[in-house]
């Protein structure tokens, strides 16, 4: 009975919220500020021609820096939670699947590289590339070609942290330009590409890690 009351209450609340929210949205006037103007105005100095990438890694690069920190942090937290656990023997899947995996993986790597390179001037970039690579690793694990990871050894830890460390180092080094992450317009493109390469590797490792460090806990 009490349960029903609670449900009814929450649902009514939610519906009311949606109603008022929509009503308020529809009566909205145009925004006072339009950021598309400055975004495109400074695009040439930003070092990339794709506005989203420009925002992501230049105008609001600081957000991205902290975001990578969040990702790395999540991985650290997960490792701290699951603790030491034996690596799960990966279940060998049907040979057909395995061959499929063997075929698809290189393809995905190529896609990733393309996405990374494309990011500078059209949709794509480090995140998508990293995600694709991670997906490849996950796939390999699922078809039984890649074992779950045990708690990471030094080399893996370096790999996981490298992208973020690189990003951080560049950000700090750019302080001498006057402020954090202030790319000199001429070198901006190169630096951003450098950062993106680093990020792609680490993002791939971290995202794969989110999966593979948990996977190992299976059967433990």
């Amino acid at each position, binding site marked *: 009975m009490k349960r029903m009351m609670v449900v009814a209450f929450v649902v009514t609340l939610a519906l009311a919220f949606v109603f008022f929210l929509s009503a308020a949205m529809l009566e909205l006037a145009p925004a006072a500020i339009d950021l598309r103007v400055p975004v495109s105005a400074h695009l040439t100095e930003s070092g990339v021609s794709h506005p989203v990438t420009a925002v992501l890694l230049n105008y609001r690069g600081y957000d991205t820096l902290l975001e990578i920190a969040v990702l790395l942090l999540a991985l650290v937290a997960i490792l701290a939670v699951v603790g030491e656990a034996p690596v799960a023997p990966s279940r060998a899947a049907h040979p057909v699947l395995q061959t499929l995996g063997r075929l698809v993986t290189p393809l995905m790597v190529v896609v990733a590289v393309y*996405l990374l390179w494309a990011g500078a001037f059209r*949709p794509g*970039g480090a995140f998508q590339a990293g995600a694709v690579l991670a997906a490849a690793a*996950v796939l390999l694990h699922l078809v039984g070609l890649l074992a779950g990871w045990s708690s990471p050894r030094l080399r893996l830890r370096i790999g996981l942290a490298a992208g973020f460390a690189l990003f951080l180092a560049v950000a700090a080094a750019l302080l001498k330009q006057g402020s954090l992450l202030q790319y000199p317009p001429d070198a901006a493109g190169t630096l951003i590409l450098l950062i993106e390469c680093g990020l792609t590797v680490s993002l791939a490792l971290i*995202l794969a890690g*989110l*999966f593979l460090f*948990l996977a190992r806990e299976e059967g433990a």
Partner: protein
Amino acid sequence: MTLAFDLLLALSLLWSGWRTLATPRLDRAIVMFITFGLLMTLAWARLSAPDIGLAEAAIGAGLTGALLLDAYGVLRRPRKGP
């Protein structure tokens, strides 16, 4: 026309979201969630945000889905702890 498509997409988003929470079986729910992710990708495309679309497909639907399914695989077999 486009509006009609948008509305349809919106409704299917809501429906898949609702099913994700409401279907009794967890595995179905997770599949529903992955569907939801793919629909989101469409929505991003409609909002002319291909970057997000890519990310959603790869991370939102792909990786998260894989994580969920893997977890489901473990949780399915109830195990008493020490």
